[in-house]
């Protein structure tokens, strides 16, 4: 069972405020290696902020957050946490892939350029090796014929699949998805979820912020419902999505259906 596995992400009492507004009020969450965890909840519940904390795009204000056993953004010596310098933060981020709601592809680079820039520039891998891997990744997300296309020549679904390939090219051990289908036209959602399903089946550890309940039910090992900066309910998808204990979860699900 998942509980016995080694943890990839461990969050303990994670807190985060934007000015006077506390957006994370002590989050406790474990994601085991090979697990897929879906974060659901109304907008403003803090689920995207929590995801961004995991690769240190946002700094946490309290609690402890580790990825692969390493503290995110800090180094511990005795009772003290030392904030990491930019190169160390970058090195840890390189092992975590992230997919954004609005794709954030580099518009001045082709699909291939988007996928290769990370490994070539950050990991200093040889260009030919990266190119071969990037072509294989683009084929895998079904874009073999779009290798030389620029982002503005692609549909939203195609862009998001390039973005997934770009993150995978860094050979991450953890993938973060921040509402990957929320900016897509309804008919393009399926092709992106299909790629994510494939990734989950191959055993990628994934943390997915999503509103796609069907996807969560099929793919997730665990579903976590957040509201107002706190985890309200977490458990297997059947429990949380089909038979929720908390009234707030029930109200949220009722609104979505």
């Amino acid at each position, binding site marked *: 069972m998942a509980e016995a596995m080694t943890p990839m992400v461990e969050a303990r009492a994670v807190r985060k405020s934007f000015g006077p507004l506390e957006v994370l009020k002590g989050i406790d969450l474990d994601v085991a290696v090979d697990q897929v965890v879906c974060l659901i909840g109304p907008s403003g519940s803090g689920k995207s902020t929590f995801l961004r904390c995991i690769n240190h795009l946002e700094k946490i204000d309290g609690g402890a957050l580790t990825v692969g056993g390493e503290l995110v953004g800090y180094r511990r010596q005795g009772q003290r946490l030392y904030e990491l310098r930019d*190169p160390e933060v*970058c090195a840890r*981020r390189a092992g975590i*892939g*992230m997919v*954004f709601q609005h794709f954030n*592809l*580099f518009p001045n680079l082709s699909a291939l350029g988007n996928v290769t820039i990370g490994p070539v520039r950050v990991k200093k891998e040889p260009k030919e090796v990266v190119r071969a891997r990037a072509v294989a990744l683009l084929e895998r997300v079904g874009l073999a014929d779009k290798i030389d296309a*620029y982002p503005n020549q692609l549909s939203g679904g195609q862009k998001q699949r390039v973005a997934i390939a770009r993150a995978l090219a*860094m050979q991450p051990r953890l993938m973060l998805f921040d509402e990957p289908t929320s900016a897509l036209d309804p008919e393009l959602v399926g092709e992106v979820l299909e790629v994510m399903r494939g990734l989950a089946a191959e055993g990628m550890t994934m943390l997915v912020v999503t509103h796609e309940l069907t996807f969560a039910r099929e793919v997730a090992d665990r579903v976590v419902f957040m509201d107002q900066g706190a985890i309200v309910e977490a458990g297997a998808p059947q429990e949380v999505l089909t038979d929720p204990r908390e009234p707030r979860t029930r109200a949220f699900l009722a609104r979505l259906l």
Partner: protein
Amino acid sequence: MGPSESDQLTASGEVSGVDPAALEVVPVRHPGRWVASVAVLVLLAMLVHSLFFSTTVRSGRRQPRFEWHVIDHYFFSSEVLKGLVVTIELTVIAMAGGIVLGVVLAVMRLSPNPLVSGSSWLYIWFFRGTPVLVQLLFWYYIGYSFPHISIGVPFGPAFFHLDLNSILTPFVAASFGLALNEGAYMSEIVRAGILSVDEGQSEAAQSLGMSRLMTLRLVVLPQAMRVIIPPTGNETISMLKTSSLASVVTLGELLFQVQTIYSANYHTIPLLIVASLWYLVVTSVLMVGQYFLERRYARGTTRAAPHNAGYWLRLVVRPRQSDAPFTGGPPHG
């Protein structure tokens, strides 16, 4: 009074008793355009006449008004060409210095450290707030206040000395003055460019593990170029002409050279025309260069992609056999 025939047509919503295919469309007339065209043509004719065919009486003799033979004589003279080369060198050096300084100042200005961003602000405040002519004179005469500069420990011993009066030739002073001034203006242009790039781009770059500097160099600046280039082209063209101010520090650039010539032979206006024509020539070359640079950095954007060179060539050398009406859209291919 009943409605007219045409009103009936639309009011009733039907074309009663008229064959719609036989209806003729009459475009609206523009008599004002004809009047304006005639007025412009008359003014143009007067200009051409004044420039090339009219004469005037100077010291009792009738002479051509604009002395084109004098212009022709000096246009390719070695003094003028020497001045032109200095003008171009000065423009290139001042712009290169200004751009580098501008990028540094813009990045400093966006720094979270208030001392760093504050000093950038102070620099821009000072160099934009004083006339560039005053700055040029200041750098030319700075040797009066700082005859020597030495490099060493601040307030401590020096490692070596430089004699500023011998280093600060007119060219060095002018390059320095113009570059430092330009840096202030360029920094605002670069800053606008950096701010125009969506924050998601930096986040995506960081999520790939790029450092802050790498993000700036590989992701932000290349995209900012699209916003930076047009005003920078503007600045370069402006700099070409601002460089003429260097004549006040006795630098032998284009304006200084023609001034030297006309102070000896009094052909003031023809020689100023020589200088103006050269400025126009270089400006035109710069505009062509800017056009190609813009195209280079328009990659990946549909909106800003200008026409290719072939499009403009076809506009000039329109193929004769084509009888298709010009629809205004850019041809593809």
